[in-house]
């Protein structure tokens, strides 16, 4: 049925023009880059990249406020823990569409997988910045397995899942390159990759929480719980769904010319909101169970307790109810704002567990250094820039007509 594009022999210059420079001459392309948004990006990178270089040249002591008491800062709490949770849209959407057959959500799978891929990539970069000896990163893979360590499992899972996400994203790459045969093979791997991806995500999303099982004395009792792996896993689903709602709304607005306008984005957002609402509702009660299990009721009226309640009621129960109301009454704008609020809530939760409620009774408080903040902002900026670069060139927010009839990914 489908007509695959014949591949006319392009000269190197033509190829670069059509594939890289958006059909503009190199000069025009450079001119098109002069925009206020790119100016801000340039400014961030002009400060951020030298700071990253400084960190690798002079080490953690010179660039961060980390210490023996607080070995994990925002590069772990924000870039790694929150980044990985927000990248969960990749496995939630891929499994919804390819395993559970919810075809309605097909139009947002590619952007979700791309967001996941970039999220993990930049989480891994954040990790590399955080490791005292990043050149030892291959050790758990090749030299010393350290099987009983949670770190070992996370290293393997994240490494493998990054590979899986890269392979899941191959079909749009091959479509962009006009390689129909390679694309066909990549599409055939979809279901296997999706299953593998769900397994890996289940493992490491929860293991990231399991890391904190080792710190019962350091983490505040309201956040410490034997259920913390389950908390991390469940909240990652809500984070992933919310992130897809936010990201699809933003990218369909920002990349209008790259978008398939027939997609019923509102219907998709409302459907995802239903899912997120149910997940958050269950998450609230599972968290409550943790408080009951540890007998922590008395702590709820302390300073940390009030902050815990803000998280419980403000960032879990409230968005759950707002999603439910929005989905039932077709309030798409409400649903989108709630999704953004939920994304913020998951970031707050990861920061609570890893930084704010960590070392709560130690005399020394960790405040990130300006360089840590700059590196985190730089990594997020690089992620957004990479997303823009890819969406402007590859068929992510739309289907190419010549591939629509074939088994699509």
């Amino acid at each position, binding site marked *: 049925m489908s007509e695959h594009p014949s591949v006319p022999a392009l000269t190197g210059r033509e190829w670069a023009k059509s594939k890289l420079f958006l059909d503009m001459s190199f000069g025009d392309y450079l001119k098109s880059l002069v925009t206020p948004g790119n100016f801000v990006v340039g400014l961030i990178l002009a400060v951020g990249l030298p700071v990253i270089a400084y960190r690798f040249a002079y080490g953690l002591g010179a660039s961060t406020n980390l210490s023996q008491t607080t070995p994990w800062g925002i590069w772990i709490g924000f870039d790694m823990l929150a980044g990985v949770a927000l990248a969960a849209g990749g496995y939630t959407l891929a499994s919804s569409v390819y395993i559970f057959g919810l075809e309605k959500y097909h139009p947002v799978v590619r952007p979700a997988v791309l967001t996941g891929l970039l999220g993990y990539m930049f989480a891994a970069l954040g990790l590399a910045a955080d490791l005292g000896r990043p050149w030892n990163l291959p050790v758990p893979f090749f030299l010393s397995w350290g099987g009983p360590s949670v770190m070992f499992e996370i290293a393997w899972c994240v490494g493998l899942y990054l590979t899986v996400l890269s392979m899941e994203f191959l079909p749009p790459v091959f479509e962009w390159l006009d390689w129909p045969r390679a694309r066909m093979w990549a599409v055939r791997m979809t279901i296997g990759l999706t299953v593998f991806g769900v397994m890996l995500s289940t493992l490491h999303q929860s293991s990231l929480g399991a890391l904190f099982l080792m710190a019962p004395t350091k983490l505040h009792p309201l956040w410490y719980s034997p259920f913390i792996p389950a908390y991390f896993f469940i909240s990652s689903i809500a984070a992933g769904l919310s992130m897809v709602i936010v990201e699809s709304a933003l990218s369909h607005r920002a990349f209008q010319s790259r978008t398939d306008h*027939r997609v*019923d984005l509102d*219907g998709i957002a409302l459907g995802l909101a*239903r899912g997120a609402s149910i997940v958050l509702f269950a998450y609230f009660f599972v968290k409550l169970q943790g408080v009951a299990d540890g007998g922590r009721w008395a702590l709820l009226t302390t300073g940390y307790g009030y902050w815990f309640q803000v998280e419980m009621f403000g960032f879990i129960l409230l968005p759950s109810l707002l999603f*439910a109301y929005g989905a039932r009454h*077709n309030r798409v704008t409400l649903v989108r704002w709630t999704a953004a609020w939920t994304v913020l809530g998951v970031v707050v939760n990861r920061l609570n567990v890893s930084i704010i409620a960590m070392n709560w009774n130690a005399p020394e408080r960790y405040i990130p250094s300006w360089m840590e903040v700059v590196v985190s902002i730089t990594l997020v900026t690089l992620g957004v820039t990479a997303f823009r670069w890819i969406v402007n060139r590859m068929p992510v927010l739309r289907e190419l007509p010549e591939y629509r009839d074939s088994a699509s990914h």
Partner: protein
Amino acid sequence: MIPHDILTLYSAKMLEYGIAVLFLLLFIPFWRYVQGPAKAPALAPARSRVPAVRAAEWFLTPADRLFHRGHAWLKGGDGGLVTVGLDDFAAKLVGPMSRLALPAVGATVGQGEPGWRLTAPDGRSVDMLSPVDGTVVQLNPALAASPDLAERDPYGDGWLMKVRPSRLRANKVNLMADRAVRRWMEDAAAALRGHVAPGLGALAQDGGVPVAGMARAIDPDGWDRLAATLLLTAEEAPDA
């Protein structure tokens, strides 16, 4: 004195069970609330502000139907019977009808073979293909009084007939659902546009809604030939 009754010993456990039960009790109404009021299968999902999800281009294609290339639909139903009708494209293409010549009850129809004939007020008519093999067991009684019901409400009250299928599984291979329907309908709309302004491609899509009886609007003299071409019943299907 330490009380020994089980409820005191396990007060934390009791609380946990209590929370679990509370969750389950609340979850049921919450789930029902989130899912919204029970709806009859709608022609098009009503949630979208732009009801476009099933409206491939101009034409509605409800999700609960299977479609045949000849622009007829089929819906499974009670007692092994299937309901058959014409789709929105055919309805808008032909427009108001003065007569619908349906096969008699008991007659057999074959998938891909002419199944019924639509006649317009100007006396010209066009055949349509049956989407299924089987025996006609009932005709829509409402059509006898008002044949244009098939045009006004092709997926609802304007259904044509109920058929007892003889080889539904094999027939389904040639029927379309879901995304395939959308793509096919888009192609059909594109083919129609080609007739509106041959050689000009996609110019006619600038915001208009198709008029009832599009074929006649495009070609008043030869509309029946055009309709037959698009409905795949032309004698010599000229390449559109």
